[in-house]
């Protein structure tokens, strides 16, 4: 398949980002208030992105056992164990990819438990290692509805972050700068949504596996003009694909929704497996997680508090079901694959009956596969291939008239 020009430019964009991480640096969780940190004057580094790099480069397997030896159980988040293990071994894939001698030293570490409690332990570990201040944002969890009180609770914590950040930077945050950063984030997130929604077309011009790569800027450059420029160009390219009817999966026969974490060390082989079987993975919970509809620069703190608290992973089962159902309808999905990620309990949604409810309420077939985001010891290539091939065949059997 011809590569998108944006995909080629992504490499230099990321190299530029990592090469310039030399100012006051704040570490932040991927769905944390990066905008506040940027407005304060920090450069922002995202350990989860590093975790994903360790997985995608399949180096995680070397580092995870080191973290186990250090006391982190094998059932604990394999972003955490890979990242801490790499640190303990004094290595990082950033060296080979971007020439960085080590991960950037933090001046402030910020986490948001909107996604899981593991980030608190993970980031606190590095706070101790670097003797660096750590601030945790603890929103209410598993919400069916997000209330005004929930938002106020988070807004207050964001205010505490601003106070701490100002002390470290040594100057007051410029509210106009925050509004500017938030506007850029809002534009970036809308463009990212537009990018993902091109896959509503039949055939889809990109798949979940492409998006797992193309999502890097919305995670690590959110709130910058580079992020906006990147997705503007990508969108132009994808619209061109839409016009020509370009198919990311030639002979697309069935459309699949991926629920749960990517299996970073198997992105390529899974992408090939689906494509060989005429199945396009057209949408996912994971890639949608960086769409923040609520950002509003007229009310920056509260709107960020709302957006970051409403993310899928922080919602109750009924809210999650409603969000998934909307995606399945919007993208005309034939089947859903739930990735039961062994070490990511929080982003695994197949353990409390969601697949059955999707089947019962929408008549859409579901499949759960065992695996993990980074620890490939929990993934069986043979068994997963058998399950996925059978599932695709099962979906094809049900829409024979279209084939």
């Amino acid at each position, binding site marked *: 398949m011809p590569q998108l020009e944006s995909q080629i430019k992504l490499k230099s964009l990321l190299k530029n980002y990592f090469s310039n991480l030399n100012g006051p640096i704040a570490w932040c969780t991927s769905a944390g208030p990066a905008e506040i940190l940027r407005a304060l004057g920090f450069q922002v580094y995202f350990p989860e992105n590093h975790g994903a790099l360790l997985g995608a480069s399949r180096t995680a397997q070397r580092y995870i056992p080191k973290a186990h030896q250090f006391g982190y159980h094998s059932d604990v988040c394999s972003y955490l164990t890979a990242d801490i293990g790499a640190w303990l071994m004094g290595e990082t894939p950033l060296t080979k990819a971007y020439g960085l001698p080590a991960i950037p030293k933090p001046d402030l570490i910020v986490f948001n438990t909107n996604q899981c409690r593991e980030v608190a332990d993970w980031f606190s570990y590095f706070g101790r290692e670097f003797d660096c201040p750590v601030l945790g944002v603890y929103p209410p969890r598993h919400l069916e509805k997000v209330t005004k009180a929930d938002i106020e609770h988070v807004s207050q914590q964001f205010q505490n972050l601003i106070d701490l950040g100002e002390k470290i930077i040594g100057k007051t945050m410029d509210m106009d700068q925050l509004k500017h950063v938030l506007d850029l984030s809002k534009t970036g997130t809308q463009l990212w949504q537009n990018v993902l929604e091109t896959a509503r077309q039949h055939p889809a011009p990109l798949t979940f596996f492409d998006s797992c790569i193309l999502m890097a800027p919305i995670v690590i450059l959110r709130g910058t003009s580079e992020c906006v420029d990147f997705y503007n160009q990508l969108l132009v390219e994808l619209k061109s694909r839409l016009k020509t009817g370009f198919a990311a999966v030639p002979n697309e026969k069935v459309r699949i929704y991926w629920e749960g974490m990517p299996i970073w060390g198997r992105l390529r082989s899974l992408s090939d497996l689906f494509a060989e079987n005429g199945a396009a993975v057209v949408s996912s919970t994971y890639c949608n997680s960086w769409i923040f509809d609520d950002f509003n620069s007229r009310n920056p703190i509260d709107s960020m508090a709302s957006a970051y608290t409403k993310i899928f992973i922080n919602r109750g089962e009924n809210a999650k079901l409603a969000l998934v159902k909307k995606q399945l309808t919007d993208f005309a999905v034939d089947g859903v694959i739930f990735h039961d990620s062994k070490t990511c309990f929080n982003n695994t949604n197949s353990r409390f009956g969601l697949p059955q409810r999707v089947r019962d309420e929408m008549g859409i*077939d579901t499949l759960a596969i065992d695996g993990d985001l980074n620890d490939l010891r929990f993934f069986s290539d043979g*068994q997963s291939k058998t399950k996925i091939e059978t599932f695709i065949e099962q979906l094809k059997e049900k829409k024979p008239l279209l084939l």
Partner: protein
Amino acid sequence: MDFQKQPHYLGIDLGSSYTKFAVINDDGDVVNSQVLPTFGRRRERFNMAVDLMHKNYSIQKTCTSGYGRNSQKSDIQKTEIICASVGVSQSNPVHKCIIDIGGEDIKVIESGSQGEVIHFHMNDKCSAGTGAFITEIAEKAELEIGEMSDLAQASNANRTINSFCTVFAKTEILGWIFDGVPIEDIAMGIYLSITDRVCKLPIPHGLPIFLCGGVITHHPFLKQLIESKLGVEAQVASHPLYAVALGAALLARKSDSQESRK
């Protein structure tokens, strides 16, 4: 006309423990079947078996299935779930549930009357409750696989192995041996453990149940225990060991007829 010159189709199920071959004629009748241990590095016996079938029958197409389906040259490759559904449906063209207990996994398949897979479930990566589990535990208990069903039938024990892990289950069995548990009760304990693993899978209600795979072939007493646990009757599919290979052969025939219509 020499019947061997008539069109035939070969299905090969390269399972985790054994490779099963089935040759069918144009009417779908099984005319030859055989089983070999799945090859490791030495493929001579496998190649000889394939060559012999090609020599004896006019094989039009071959379909491979099982974990090794992509390891051999063939016209088509289909998963063992799809093939089991097709194979069992040949004699049982009804909406049904198939429970296939193999060497390393257990599959529960909701299968349509035409052999289509409606829904399926496999055990997770752990091999507890599968053929490999029985082999490992039986070896530790010094039980002959072929005698286990008869032994278990003579037991009234209701004691099961607790451990999910095959390695720990072996240690547990060692404890039973030290405690002087009769060999019949050990055989029964292994079967009850398997039955528990099978019956915790989501088995659809109200459908006729068909059992197939290597485990039910070699351990027929399991049928009674599964029936008792589920509270419904189950049938052992015809050709239980060859259900997947038969399905593969039938799919090879189907593929041939689809091509000839083009």
